[in-house]
């Protein structure tokens, strides 16, 4: 991978300031920022604006009497976030990972345990295929094709709703 040096970076920054509308130069298509992440070797995506931050090697606190896809809690700047194991949710197998993707939310403090963050990619709306008909589809919003690889986009809200239902039923 080619890494720009400082001069090139400054030159690109200067050039990009004149191209503030490049993202809109694609004729009226909205570019969605998708954060591509990996759970084990599977890639998934979420809307980047739903992600607050990604932390690594954060202490995880186990919570008893919770659904198995709830790994535990992390304390991020005094705020507890519930950590979801998407692998357990999708495959019923526990995920061994050290990165946690903290989601933005005013009321639900959710985080997902992920293996790695691949990239933040801008995907036009036309490149996103929405999925609405099945239960799994409710977990995923849709999928996109990134460099020939089909990546599902996780429906974060749905996961929030499921958690609430499950917690009520406990």
């Amino acid at each position, binding site marked *: *991978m080619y890494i720009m040096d400082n001069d090139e*970076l400054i030159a690109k*920054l200067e050039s990009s*300031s004149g191209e503030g509308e490049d993202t809109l130069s694609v004729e009226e298509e909205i570019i969605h920022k998708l954060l591509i992440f990996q759970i084990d070797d599977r890639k998934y995506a979420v809307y*980047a604006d739903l992600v607050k931050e*990604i932390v690594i090697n954060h202490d995880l606190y186990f919570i008893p009497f919770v659904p198995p896809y709830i790994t535990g809690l992390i304390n991020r700047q005094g705020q507890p976030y519930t950590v979801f194991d998407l692998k357990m949710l999708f495959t019923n197998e526990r995920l061994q990972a050290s990165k946690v993707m903290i989601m933005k939310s005013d009321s639900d403090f959710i985080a997902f345990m992920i293996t790695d*963050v691949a990239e933040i990619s801008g995907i036009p709306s036309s490149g996103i295929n929405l999925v609405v008909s099945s239960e799994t589809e409710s977990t995923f919003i849709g999928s996109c094709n990134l460099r020939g690889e089909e990546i599902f986009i996780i429906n974060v809200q749905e996961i929030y709703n499921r958690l609430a239902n499950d917690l009520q039923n406990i």
Partner: protein
Amino acid sequence: MNIPFRVSIRHKILIGSIGIATIACLSIAMLSYIKAGSIIDNAAEQGLTGVTNHLLNLCRTNYELSQKTVNYNLNVADFFVKGKTELRYNRPIRYDAEDQITHAKTPVTIPTMAVEGTFVSNSFGLVDRVTDMIGGTVTIFQRMTRPNGLLRISTSVKRKDGSRAVGTYIPESSPVYKTIMRRETFRGNAFVVNDWYITAYKPIIGAGNEIIGTIYVGIKQSEMDVLRNKILSVKHGASGSTYVIDDHENSRGTLVIHSSMEGTNILDRKDADGVAYVREICSRKNGSGVYSIPDPVSGDVRTKMLQYRHLPEMGWIIVAEGDYDEINSPLFSLRNTMIVVGILCVIFIVVLGTYFSNSVSSVVRNIVNRIKLLKEGDFSKDIPGEDMARNDEFGVMAHHFSQLIQNTRELLGKVRQTTEVLTESIQDLTISSKEISSTSNQQAAAVKEIVSTMEDSDSLSKKVASRIDEVARIANQTKEFVEKGFSLIKETLEKMEDIQNTNAENISGVRSLGTQIESIWEVVNIINGIADQTKIIAFNAELEASAAGDAGKNFQIVASEVRRLADSTVSSTNEIRQKIDEIQRSSDNLVLSTERGTERIREGWERSTKLREVFDEILNSAEVSAASSEQIVASVNQQVSAFEQILLTLRQISQGIDDFVVSTRATTSASESLKETSEDLKASLAKYILS
């Protein structure tokens, strides 16, 4: 000794007893006679010795007393002349000086001598007066020269014719003269004119202190009457006598004291055997002897036993004489008595011998008759009872002989019975010995076969021994080879151990490399973690930039580059990780291969160790094998030796059996001879009459 004629016991006893008695009596008589003679001779000799010793002591004592008297007399005589004597040269006097020894005369002229003014030459008043006072003889000598001597000028000494011995002189050769010339006094025995005197001479010193003369006093030895009488009175036996012989040089052999022949010189007198016994006596001076001396008066020859002793002071030899026949008269009487007694004893013994011989011969005759019968084989008759009833050895003999006849009779009976039994037994023995001979022949043949077999075994054993020797040699060689292999294995093990150690070092090095790789891995992980965190931070920055919209566009670019940088770092770390993985895989492979190699080496070492153990066992086995081979060799050699000994023993047994066969044959032959002999014995015994 074969006696040509028959002599009966009786005569033998008689002759024997007479002979024994006679010999005994004669022997006793002879011994007694000889012993008695010896005793008598010793007694006589001792008696004569006693006499002579007694007379010797007597004479010596007398001499000493006389000498003392003479010494005293000299003092008296010297009183008269000492210091009062002088020579008158103006009145010489002439003498015909006569040597008192040679009687040679020499005319001399000498000055006269005066004593107190009175001439004494040829004057005898003084000497006579002194003689009257002291007795003996007195002489005044005057010294003369040419010839040298001491001249008697006044003396009371008389010649044989009775005249005074004036004019005689003592020659210079005399010890008297020599003593006087030394101005000394002479005391002792001296020859004076014609006899020997006990004397004392003293020099007369003149006014000029020269010797002018000598004064003499003396006593004639032979005129010591008491001594003389004593000597003559002593005698041994009735016909014994004593006398004195003069031993002085010029009068040797003269009888000084004798009962009838005083003054006679008997030096050349000889006895009846021609022995000059007087000369012998004078030569020996002390001793004894037996001589056949003819009587000077009657001429009868008598055997005399003489004992004599020398008195050197007086020059005398004192002789005691005993008559031999008188001395031995008891012996002759004893002899006669013993002859009579012997004859009587012989007569008595003849009578007694006759009686005993008759007594003995009758018993012997009876026994002889019985023996004749026994010789003819008649054991049926016994000895007469009266002979057996005797209370002496013959009775005992007759009794025992009778017993002997009875025992012999019984013995012959038993022998006859035994002979019959013996004959039967010998018959059986002959049969048995024949059988034994046959059996021993068979045994001899069998033993010979055994010997042959053992010889084969012996040769085989020797071959085996030689083979075993070879095996032992090979075992020893094998042992040497094994030892060599063992040493090679040992070297190999040491090398493998070195390889193992080197391998372990390699593994250790590889492990160390792995450790370092792990440390690199840790660094890479750290870098990776940092890159990852950087990437996360970049992502977060990108998220913030994305949330910021256009305002965060540049920030997004920076974040994107940072992310790309982080990705690049991650990618690089991944590459590094891959490389490290590769290195680690390689090192792991290397470790694995090394460990496999180590394992192989360990297996090889274990195999080698096992091989060493095996070789050890092989070596032990080889040693044991070699030792066992040697033991086998020794055992086989012992066996060979034992075989040889067995073979030798068997040969000896064979030889013994052969000898046994021979002896069995001899036994058979002997038993047959015995059989013949027993039959002869039986035939011989058949002729004896036992009842």
